């Protein structure tokens, strides 16, 4: 008898587990409904900006959608709020601060537009490609209006995206586009990839002084397309006469792993005694390099700069190890992405070169042909914020 009781108890425990999952999810559902009904729908008119020039373009490109579009909303380039909009915000993976910040921005925009908050769903870091494909495939089954993707699957996301678009959903990419742009309406670009080179060169100049000096790059992985594009842009800037006094000694890769980046930074110091600066165009690399220099008391000889998160870099900036670094706001990126996706999915703008819209507190943007890819459209957010001891907080 005892044995059957134990068996029964275990089955009961399993059942409770299943019930717990169920109830947890009910809560989530309730939240969504609540948000939908309580959120203000008043912000739409508050940030009216004059964009009569761009408005004409938008009207022309929008001939197909004019019936749906509210003419009052179109007149000032702002979106009519409160329309049905069920979307998924899909980061490369979850558990990274920048993607949570993007979600904050998306939530803020959802509040202003008075619509359902997008589900923030991402794969685990070790299952990013297959996980993103799974979420996109499920989105097609769920019949969502839009999915906003920070693509980490390269071209491999295409078949799943094609199936999703077939259901009538809008796909917008942000942070990282679909390379071929197939299936994607618009890519919301954080910064102009060419501008990144100039920003890094200017920070190097500012740290090394007017007489220049030599530095090395600590990047992510050798096949990271955005980092490679930025390094390429930096090299182009360095080739001009104006920056001839800045000498790039070496480029090494820390694969976006803290320990590897840390070791690579120290190896650079050993190999290049005359190096005065490590430039790292990745948030993992810059923090690891700054820690390495601080741990080894090298900050007086070798400075660190690049692209970093203020929260992670604050101490190093204040101690002088990393006097300057740059980044864009991921909150703004999520906010802008949500706005443009809402506009596209509700038919208030069309994904076409020249179409313009107003994105709440961020002002006006225009969709344009993406010059960094062979095909596709983009909305360029920009600009960089350069952080130093004064504004790092």
């Amino acid at each position: 008898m005892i044995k059957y009781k134990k068996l029964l108890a275990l089955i009961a425990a399993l059942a409770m587990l299943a019930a717990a999952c169920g109830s947890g999810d009910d809560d989530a559902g309730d939240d969504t409904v609540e948000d939908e009904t309580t959120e203000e729908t008043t912000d739409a008119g508050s940030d009216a900006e004059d964009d009569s020039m761009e408005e004409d373009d938008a009207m022309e490109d929008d001939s197909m959608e004019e019936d749906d579009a509210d003419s009052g909303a179109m007149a000032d380039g702002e979106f009519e709020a409160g329309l049905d909009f069920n979307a998924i915000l899909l980061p490369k993976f979850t558990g990274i601060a920048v993607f949570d910040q993007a979600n904050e921005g998306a939530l803020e925009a959802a509040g202003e537009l008075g619509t359902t908050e997008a589900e923030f769903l991402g794969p685990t870091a070790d299952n990013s490609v297959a996980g993103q494909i799974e979420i996109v495939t499920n989105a097609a089954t769920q019949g969502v209006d839009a999915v906003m993707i920070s693509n980490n699957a390269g071209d491999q996301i295409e078949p799943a995206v094609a199936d999703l678009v077939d259901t009538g959903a809008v796909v917008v990419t942000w942070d990282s586009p679909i390379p071929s742009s197939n299936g994607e309406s618009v890519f919301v670009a954080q910064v102009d990839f060419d501008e990144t080179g100039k920003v890094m060169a200017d920070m190097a100049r500012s740290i090394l002084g007017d007489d220049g000096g030599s530095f090395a790059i600590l990047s992510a992985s050798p096949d990271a397309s955005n980092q490679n594009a930025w390094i390429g842009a930096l090299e182009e800037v360095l080739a001009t006469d104006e920056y001839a006094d800045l000498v790039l000694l070496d480029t090494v890769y820390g694969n976006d792993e803290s320990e590897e980046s840390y070791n690579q930074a120290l190896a650079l110091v050993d190999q290049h005694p005359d190096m005065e600066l490590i430039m790292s165009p990745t948030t993992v690399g810059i923090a690891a390099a700054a820690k390495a220099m601080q741990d080894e008391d090298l900050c007086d000889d070798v400075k660190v700069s690049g692209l970093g998160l203020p929260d992670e870099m604050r101490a190093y900036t204040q101690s002088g190890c990393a006097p300057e670094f740059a980044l864009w706001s991921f909150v703004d990126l999520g906010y802008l992405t949500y706005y443009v996706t809402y506009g596209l999915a509700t038919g208030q703008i069309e994904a076409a070169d020249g179409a313009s819209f107003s994105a709440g507190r961020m002002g006006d943007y225009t969709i344009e042909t993406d010059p960094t890819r062979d095909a596709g459209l983009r909305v360029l957010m920009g600009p960089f914020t350069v952080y130093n001891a004064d504004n790092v907080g």
Partner: protein
Amino acid sequence: MTGTLGFLTREDRRWELLLFGILVLTVIFNVTQSTNYVGVNNFVNLFELSIEKIIIAVVMAFVIISGEIDLSVASVMGVGACVVAALHDSTSVPFLLAIIIAIGVGGLAGFIQGWCTAKLGVPSLVVTLAGLIGFRGLARILVEDRSIGDFPSWFDSLGQSGLIGPLPFSVIVFAAAISFGGVLLGRTGLGRRAYVIGDNAEMARFSGVDVVDYKIRLFVVSGAVAAFAGVLFAARLGSVRGDLASGFELDIITMVLLGGVSIFGGTGSMVGVFISILIVLNLRNGLGLANVEANTQTGIIGVILIASVVLRNTFDRFETPAAETDPVLPNEKTSANQTPTRREHE
């Protein structure tokens, strides 16, 4: 008295029933959680999203029942896909021939690992761990950190659209593989030898089973099927990168173990593995449609796996008379009371 069970013990059968109960709970959960769950397209998607893993799981069941493990399968998947991509990209080899070469390379990878395991006696855990790292490196070398696509359209549509009605080629392959594997494992001498070897390789050798030969062949099949699955994955994705399928090995092994196959070899059934596959796939699908976060999904599947192992040990401790008189370690106990049970059928 238990002649209809094939090579299964009563414990295996009871395990299958319990798994079936969990499956029913999962399906009920899904139906109540999402209105989109029931539907032909979703059921096809549900299989298709993991189809490469579950095809390999069929072979993995044989490998683990034989007392071995193959951790290299996901890396060999990568090699298979990358061989096809590299041949397509830089040679004029006909595409179909490239696929056959890829499967051959997978078989060769399996042969090397099987030979090291069976002939040299290096534990398969070590050999295939080296394989996991080494073959992944080979895959990356083959495509050099690029993404290679532009495959022939018949290949893409083979992976992405239905072949018979809504059923894609890969789903049909899986249906064939699990049926064939189930009969092979449960009803033939070949399957019986897997149990005998996994139970006690030494004893199998003395009773005339060529254990070395058997294991090498098993690893060859495992490698070839993994490479084939990698090719199927490439067709589904439409392009290949060096990191294709990385990390899949643990999902595959998880499904096999949840199916009641003992990690120590010698026990398990294909029916159990099939039900376990259905549980994992339905659970992932249902949780996904209910917008449950990926980390939580992984956690829930982990809890179910642990619960199932605890349950199984509880069975073995309280249900078998042998255990009451034999106070040894759980795994020894399992084989101690199952060997005689199996002999009954012979």
